[in-house]
């Protein structure tokens, strides 16, 4: 390889690396990317060596939610990490701090690179000396140096590009990204991130509701509550979505906090939107019976529910059992 060709190879390698880095720096990550990136730096405190971004634990989910909220409020990455450090210390960082015993972790690669660079420089300054090992006996130092630099440049580009591509294949960033997907296949972390990043999107209520239903199904009322509330208060929610949210909020108010009056008020709001809602009517009857002891009102509501033609056989059986019990003066189930 001639001197000119070697120089061109080195310049091309360095230029490619520079372009890659400039492209990465110039790319402004979305909020979802930031939440994911911060989450991957934070160790889940209740797990073994997992980040909060990758842990399925509910504590990790709560911490990701906190990170997401902080990002939405405009906090910088460092501010968010500092906030967690103030509570947990450096033990919560997956990347070791650049101090103390872990300083060596950061210095070692730099030292290794520096040593390698020194060896290359030394070889280049002593081109005519006899070689001792196989490599040096077949390859002159003048040829080896540029090849090493070129190889190193290519390796850096591959590694950096790998990180970049990994980020691009991360979680979906918008509601539209998930519009065609079956939400059953989407993780709760992804749904949380998408909902947080698209709080004002007109189509976000459907996803909020699906996410809230997941939490509700496993009895995690505290996680479900804010999403149901957001749907109930959303100007973009459909009538059916608002009714579902109000009915769930009503049931959680009673089942979780024994707030009978609040529950009935929420069921009434649902019925004001959809007077045919059998779920709202049935649950209102149940709360009136169990929470307020209003047997007559409960009886009337159960009878109205049974009169509804669209009731499923299973639901009909349950309501009939409740109606029989309330008529017999039994205690509520």
């Amino acid at each position, binding site marked *: 390889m001639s001197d000119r060709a070697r120089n061109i190879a080195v310049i091309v390698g360095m230029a490619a690396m520079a372009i890659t880095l400039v492209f990465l720096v110039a790319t402004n990550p979305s909020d979802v990317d930031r939440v994911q990136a911060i989450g991957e730096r934070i160790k889940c405190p209740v797990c073994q060596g997992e980040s909060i971004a990758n842990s399925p634990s509910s504590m990790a989910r709560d911490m990701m939610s906190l990170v997401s909220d902080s990002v939405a409020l405009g906090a910088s990455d460092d501010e968010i990490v500092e906030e967690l450090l103030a509570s*947990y210390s450096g033990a919560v960082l997956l990347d070791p701090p650049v101090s103390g015993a872990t300083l060596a972790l950061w210095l070692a690669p730099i030292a290794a690179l520096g040593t390698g660079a020194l060896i290359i420089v030394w070889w280049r300054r002593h081109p005519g000396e006899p070689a001792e090992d196989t490599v040096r006996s077949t390859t002159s130092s003048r040829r080896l140096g540029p090849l090493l630099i070129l190889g190193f440049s290519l390796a850096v580009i591959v590694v950096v590009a790998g990180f970049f591509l990994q980020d691009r294949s991360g979680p979906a960033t918008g509601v539209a990204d998930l519009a065609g997907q079956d939400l059953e296949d989407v993780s709760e972390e992804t749904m949380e991130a998408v909902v947080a990043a698209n709080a004002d999107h007109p189509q976000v209520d459907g996803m909020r509701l699906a996410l809230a239903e997941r939490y509700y199904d496993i009895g995690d009322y*505290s996680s479900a509550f804010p999403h149901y509330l957001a749907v109930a208060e959303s100007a973009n929610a459909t009538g059916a979505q608002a009714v579902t949210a109000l009915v769930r909020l009503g049931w959680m108010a009673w089942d979780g906090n024994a707030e009978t009056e609040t529950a009935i008020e929420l069921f009434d709001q649902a019925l004001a939107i959809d007077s045919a809602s059998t779920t709202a009517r049935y649950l209102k009857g149940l709360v009136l019976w169990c929470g307020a002891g209003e047997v007559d009102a409960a009886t009337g509501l159960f009878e109205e529910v049974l009169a509804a033609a669209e009731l499923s056989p299973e639901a009909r059986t349950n309501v009939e059992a409740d109606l029989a019990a309330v008529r017999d003066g039994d205690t509520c189930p």
Partner: protein
Amino acid sequence: MRGNALRWVGYGVALAAVVFAVVLASRFGTDPSLVDSPLLGQPAPGFDLTPLEGGDPVSLDDLEGDIVVINFFASWCLECRNEHQALISTADAFADEEVTFVSISYQESPPASLQYLETEGKSEVTHYLADPGSRTAIAYGVFGIPETFFIDDEGIVVGKIIGESDAFTLGATIDAIERGESPGQSVTGNTQQSPDG
């Protein structure tokens, strides 16, 4: 000549690698959850939480001027069950002094925590609070439960017990704080991170 120089470079790299490995190995076996809480000596993180049974929220500001004992618990935590009666009896014992006990439900739905308290008993002078989204647990850097924090009458975190505590330890810690001391952190037993372990 060049061979000797390279050999010495090789020795240097090998020595550095050995030192590096020793430094890393010295950190093995250290439980990160047992590091001293960075909150010790700092103002206690505020909270504004709703009681498990509903009603008006309770904030740390409301308790200003009191020594506040904050315990994180859950029904799925065996160590929490073991210390439960000690917390009740100590809270009752200090009811006439300016000491307030706060028990915060950790990673559990309010109905489950309430059911637990109905079965195991409650102190009438303790605030039992829900922590939606674990925001307060995160603010206090909870790694596992039970963890109990002690806040002095000026709102500074002065003590932390990791693991199951007993009435003697709780009482002695509060006595020390009343004397103006800062008990610091102590590890009295295991903690549980989740219902599975």
